């Protein structure tokens, strides 16, 4: 149990992650909670497989550093500039409001002002790692709520620096400390200036030089060296490592190596971030928790509830709709790793027991986030109207044709029908798309066409045709089945993705149009023309292909589950088709042929 070597440790971490994460992911609880629980399981309060979680935590913090580097890569200076309002406005509001509220509550509960203030500062911080990783895992980062969360996390990264200084002052206000601070601030500003200049003029030629060696692992090594080097420099002048990495990312966001850097850093980020969560899990003081479960739990849940409420109240009028405000409020509801730092720095203000209690509450609050996010996704988001997830529109007209899906495909279908004098009722599940086409004067309804009540409201029992033009294969199949079951006399026309689902529609006897077949044939025809085939010959060849291919689809559909047979008939069919196309090409090509055409 003691004296574990590097190999054993690596084995334990990897095994814990590999076992816990897929299980939690499968249960729908997300990878972050998986890592955290894995950490608890192997830590000093679980199986005690790892003796000293502290050292790993330090190492694993590079996961956050790499995460922020990658976030920076996605955000060039112009986009960062565009976020200035949420970063500074929303960010400062969030920090100040939390500090004030927690401090006021603390004082009201009889705690000294200093202690209450420190607790407030610590609790104001959210976890960059948990917040961003959870949002990224659920693809919620690009939503307004995700952007707000990211902006505030960035502000907190900046805010932690003056807060640490403030704590040093509160701790005793030694004159030396203040002097040192000025010195360090000057250094920090100088370093950031240097970094920006180097990023602009030095980094790219250097990257080009390394890339030109053609050795991939050297490029990977250089990428890591770059990020960690900047992080180390930042730390040396007392800035947050993550902030430095973020800055480096932003500076390289416009460079031609962005994608390579992303690809190279991504796996390291994933592993180290996982390790970080495991380390956090290991550091959770289960003993204290068991000793005073109600106190720790109450404190943690109280903080989470308070932060959620405050954040919702701040974000709602400031920035976004109900659903995004809720997402923002919950994504940042936990207390983050910076709290450990702040509480650690406040050793002279807070008694040891208080620090332990606060830390336990912080760790517990982290565990709550994946669960809250799950609740958000399952329960809250579908109900709250974001400019995205609003309630389905009330459909106020009945037309002979219903078009489900109003993207690139459905729009054309509907426009052609409209031009021919056939009115369509258009439904799309993407609210932005609906709003967009409405601005252009086309009437579309927001709603989910896989729902029976919506189809009925659109007049499916009386319509002459339902065009299923959604791009999602499963959704298209679901709508088709639903319509056939409930409106057996309603003719259907479906957009098929490819051969596999086209087979399904053949079996069902529903006419389907493979979405790219027509355009690919247009391209083939154009290619033949470029190659000197006569336009009429090129057209005949493409038309012949289409005719045969569509016939083959029907002939082969019965074999679609028998791969061997399918391969055999396909090969034969392809040979036949080739012969046919060659014949077609010869038919129209040669002037040397007898006959007059």
């Amino acid at each position, binding site marked *: 149990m003691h004296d574990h070597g590097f190999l054993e440790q690596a084995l334990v971490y990897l095994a814990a992650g590999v076992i816990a994460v897929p299980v939690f992911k499968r249960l729908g609880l997300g990878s972050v909670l998986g890592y955290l629980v894995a950490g608890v399981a192997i830590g000093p309060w679980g199986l005690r497989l790892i003796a000293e979680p502290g050292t790993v935590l330090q190492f694993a913090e590079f996961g956050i550093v790499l995460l922020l580097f990658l976030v920076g890569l996605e955000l060039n200076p112009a986009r960062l500039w565009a976020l200035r309002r949420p970063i500074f406005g929303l960010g400062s509001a969030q920090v100040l409001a939390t500090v004030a509220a927690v401090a006021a509550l603390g004082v009201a509960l009889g705690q000294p002002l200093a202690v209450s203030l420190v607790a407030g500062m610590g609790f104001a911080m959210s976890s960059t790692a948990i917040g961003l990783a959870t949002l990224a895992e659920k693809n919620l980062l690009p939503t307004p709520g995700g952007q707000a969360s990211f902006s505030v996390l960035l502000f907190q990264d900046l805010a932690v620096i003056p807060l640490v200084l403030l704590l040093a002052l509160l701790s005793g206000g030694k004159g030396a400390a203040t002097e040192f601070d000025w010195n360090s601030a000057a250094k920090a500003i100088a370093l950031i200036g240097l970094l920006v200049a180097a990023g602009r003029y030095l980094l790219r030629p250097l990257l080009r030089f390394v890339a030109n060696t053609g050795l991939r692992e050297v490029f990977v090594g250089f990428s890591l060296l770059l990020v960690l080097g900047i992080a180390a420099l930042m730390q040396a002048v007392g800035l947050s490592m993550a902030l430095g990495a973020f800055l480096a990312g932003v500076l390289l966001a416009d460079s031609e190596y962005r994608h390579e850097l992303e690809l190279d850093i991504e796996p390291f980020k994933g592993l180290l971030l996982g390790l970080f969560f495991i380390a956090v899990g290991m550091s959770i003081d289960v003993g204290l928790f068991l000793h005073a479960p109600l106190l720790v739990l109450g404190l943690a849940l109280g903080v989470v509830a308070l932060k959620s409420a405050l954040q919702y109240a701040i974000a709602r009028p400031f920035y976004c709709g109900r659903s995004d405000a809720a997402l923002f409020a919950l994504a940042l509801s936990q207390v983050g790793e910076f709290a450990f730092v702040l509480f650690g720095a406040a050793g002279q203000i807070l008694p040891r027991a208080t620090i332990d209690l606060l830390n336990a509450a912080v760790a517990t609050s982290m565990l709550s986030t994946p669960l809250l996010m799950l609740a958000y996704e399952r329960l809250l988001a579908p109900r709250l109207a974001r400019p995205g997830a609003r309630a389905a529109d009330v459909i106020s007209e009945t037309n002979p044709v219903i078009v489900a899906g109003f993207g690139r495909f459905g729009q054309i279908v509907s426009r052609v029908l409209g031009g021919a004098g056939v009115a369509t009722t258009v439904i799309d599940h993407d609210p932005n798309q609906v709003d967009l086409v409405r601005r252009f004067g086309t009437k579309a309804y927001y709603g989910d066409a896989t729902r029976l009540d919506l189809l009925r409201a659109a007049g499916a029992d009386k319509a002459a045709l339902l065009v299923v033009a959604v791009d999602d294969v499963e959704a298209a199949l679901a709508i088709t089945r639903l319509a056939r079951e409930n409106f057996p006399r309603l003719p259907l026309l479906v957009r098929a993705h490819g051969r596999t689902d086209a087979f399904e529609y053949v079996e069902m006897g529903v006419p389907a149009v493979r979405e790219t077949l027509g355009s690919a044939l247009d391209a083939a025809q154009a290619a033949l023309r470029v190659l000197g085939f006569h336009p009429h010959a090129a*057209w005949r060849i493409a*038309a012949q292909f289409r*005719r045969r291919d569509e016939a083959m689809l029907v002939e082969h559909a019965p074999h679609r589950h028998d791969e061997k047979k399918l391969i055999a008939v396909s090969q034969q069919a392809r040979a036949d088709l080739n012969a046919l196309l060659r014949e*077609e090409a010869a*038919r129209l090509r040669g002037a040397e042929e*007898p*006959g007059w*055409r």
Partner: protein
Amino acid sequence: MPLRILVLYAHPAHDRSRANRALRAAIEDLAGVTLHDLYDSYPDFFVDVRREQRLAEQHDVLLFQHPMYWYNVPALLKEWQDAVLEVGWAYGEGGDKLHGKHFMQALSTGGHAASYRHGGHAQFEIAELLRPFEQMAHYCGMRCLPPFVTHAARLIDERALEAQAEAYRERVAALAAGELPAPFDTIPSAE
């Protein structure tokens, strides 16, 4: 001996047709008749040559049924001629696949019968206007049968149209039964 009849039906606006729709309905269900609607099969004008040749080979009579457009067939039926009647199949060396078959036309005109005479609106008699088809049949080794003509297709009354459809049905049914009329031959014999 019964004959198998392939009706190559060409009407670009079948849904708005009056005469041809009635005529077609009159023969569609006859035994030995295969009705092949070209504008329905090839809305994109892509005529599948192989398929059409197989189909022709399986029948004894080719019957073009169509409205007369500009003293000719509608464009898709002309495309059918151009694409399907290939050298080596319909004519030329080895081109004997239509030899011994019969060719017939059932056409409708807009003008009255009286127009189709020298000095009339149409200037020519129907038989003269149909000479390219007569020669096509001849060149492909087919025997040309007398055409079935419905004049003033938009103007004749219901009763006359009914009678016309009945007459058409009788003609086609007799043909299917193997009763051949005297060949339609406007070409002066070479002798």
